[in-house]
């Protein structure tokens, strides 16, 4: 019996991998990815403008300081949110909108293999764009502070990337769930992330802890820098280990509810 269960799990893991591959094929070379790549490149364009200004005016501040502001505002509160909203809320609904879900429903794919097989490509593509975008900003900004700054601040870069990737896992799981609950999930997602998250996270007191952004920013290395502007954006932070645990638990809850929704929802089109 146990052997049968193991075999069944192995089979479903294999189904999940094939679905992952099929989904990757369908989301990488799309107009949406082209559009989101341009959004992901926006911080790089700002970086270029800063460097050009710095060439004429050396009082513009250090590259590291600018990188900190750029990451804390544009990258985490803009690019990360927009990418995760678009990929998370469309990765499954695309199958419904294009009416291709019927082919997947006709195959022996369990609920978890279906949801995880759709979820992971969205996480991988979003994270890849974030990693590329962040590195494109990091290298020239550290370069203008001196070559040593590139390697000297590498741990900051790695923590930035780590925090944003963990954030991508959580947000995409939430967006996937929203897409199973509501029509027009992109709009709901944008209202939630750019509205609720970006506003409530700035409110002092315990209320900002009801945002996902609070927990991501608590593992973000820039929150402790001495900058009045950034200090105002981060009323207080939680311990790193607690933050990671909260994000992992939230991700698992969102995924579990998504699997339940998929297993119980009717996706058929009425006559």
């Amino acid at each position: 019996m146990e052997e049968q269960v193991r075999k069944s799990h192995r089979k479903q893991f294999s189904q999940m991998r094939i679905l992952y591959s099929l989904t990757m094929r369908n989301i990488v070379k799309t107009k949406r990815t082209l559009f989101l790549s341009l959004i992901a490149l926006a911080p790089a364009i700002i970086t270029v403008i800063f460097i050009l200004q710095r060439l004429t005016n050396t009082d513009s501040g250090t590259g590291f300081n600018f990188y900190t502001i750029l990451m804390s505002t544009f990258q985490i509160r803009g690019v990360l949110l927009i990418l995760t909203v678009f990929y998370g809320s469309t990765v499954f609904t695309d199958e419904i909108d294009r009416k291709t879900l019927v082919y997947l429903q006709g195959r022996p794919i369990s609920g978890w293999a279906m949801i995880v097989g759709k979820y992971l490509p969205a996480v991988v593509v979003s994270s890849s764009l974030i990693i590329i975008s962040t590195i494109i900003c990091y290298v020239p900004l550290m370069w203008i502070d001196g070559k040593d700054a590139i390697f000297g601040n590498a741990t900051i870069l790695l923590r930035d990337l780590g925090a944003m990737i963990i954030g991508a896992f959580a947000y995409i799981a939430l967006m996937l769930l929203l897409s199973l609950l509501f029509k027009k999930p992109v709009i709901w997602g944008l209202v939630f992330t750019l509205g609720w998250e970006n506003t409530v996270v700035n409110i002092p007191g315990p209320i900002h802890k009801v945002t996902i952004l609070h927990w991501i920013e608590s593992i973000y290395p820039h929150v402790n820098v001495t900058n009045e502007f950034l200090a105002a954006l981060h009323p207080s932070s939680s311990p790193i280990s607690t933050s990671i645990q909260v994000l992992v638990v939230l991700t698992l809850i969102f995924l579990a509810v998504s699997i339940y929704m998929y297993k119980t929802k009717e996706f058929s089109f009425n006559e």
Partner: protein
Amino acid sequence: MSSVISFTSVSRWFGDVIALNDISLNIEGGITGLLGPNGAGKSTFINLVTGRLKPSKGRVTILGENPLHNYKLTRFYGFVPEQDAYYERLTGLEFMTYMARLHGFDKRGATRLSMELLERHGLINHQNKPVAAYSKGMRQRIKLAQALIHDPEVIFLDEPLNGMDPVGRAETIDLIKTLGKQGKTVIVSSHILFEVEAMTQQIVLINNGRILAEGQVDEIRGLIDEYPHNVIIYSDRLRELATVFVNLPDVVDMHIKEDQGFLKVQSREPENFYHTIVKIAVEDGFNITRIESPDDNLQSVFKYLVK
């Protein structure tokens, strides 16, 4: 022994709209045509039996099991959807291979099977073209091929001949008949009687969410004969013609439209009635300028029956 497909007092409604109304039905092996006009409830029927919809009332089984969200059952059936929807960027071979691999075949086995099915469906020379570049007929054929990739016992085809050219149509009908001969249970939905008639003698007639009739085509045709058939006759001697027709036993109703120059007759035996018209035109010298039948083909006879 239980039926391959069984509906027991099944109803399904969407808000105030009743899509299927208290249906009880057993379907055995072979080919069964699910015949009904658009909106009759055919797709709801197929969605219920493939577990995509939950019955509002009653019980549906396929191979003795409840199909609702039962992904393991998909190993035993294949489904050809009505929608013209595909993974457009994939080539024909890639699409088939993915579908095979999702059924648990390894890469090599999936490729081999896909090539075999593409060959059988006349798509082998287009295997490396993206599905987006396929013609309507080719798209229909690959949709059918993907449903057969795992050699299922039961196959559901929702309007499979839509958009096919005459050659593709004939080939698909032959293929469906072959599947029936191989002992598969095939459920074909269509709104065109002669298409279904070309595939099978076993028909389920469905309209407004109810099963009107089920059985052999001959039995259904017997039912058709119970319904009057309209014939419109144009002549300059309408009243005299009406006097002749009123004595015919198969004529059940008649209206003279003198201002429009025709006589509308309802007959229970249209074939006999047509013979009679020809006979009196020749023998009695009636000048009949035109004969029309609003339901002079099988499809409109069918529509007439389900009215």
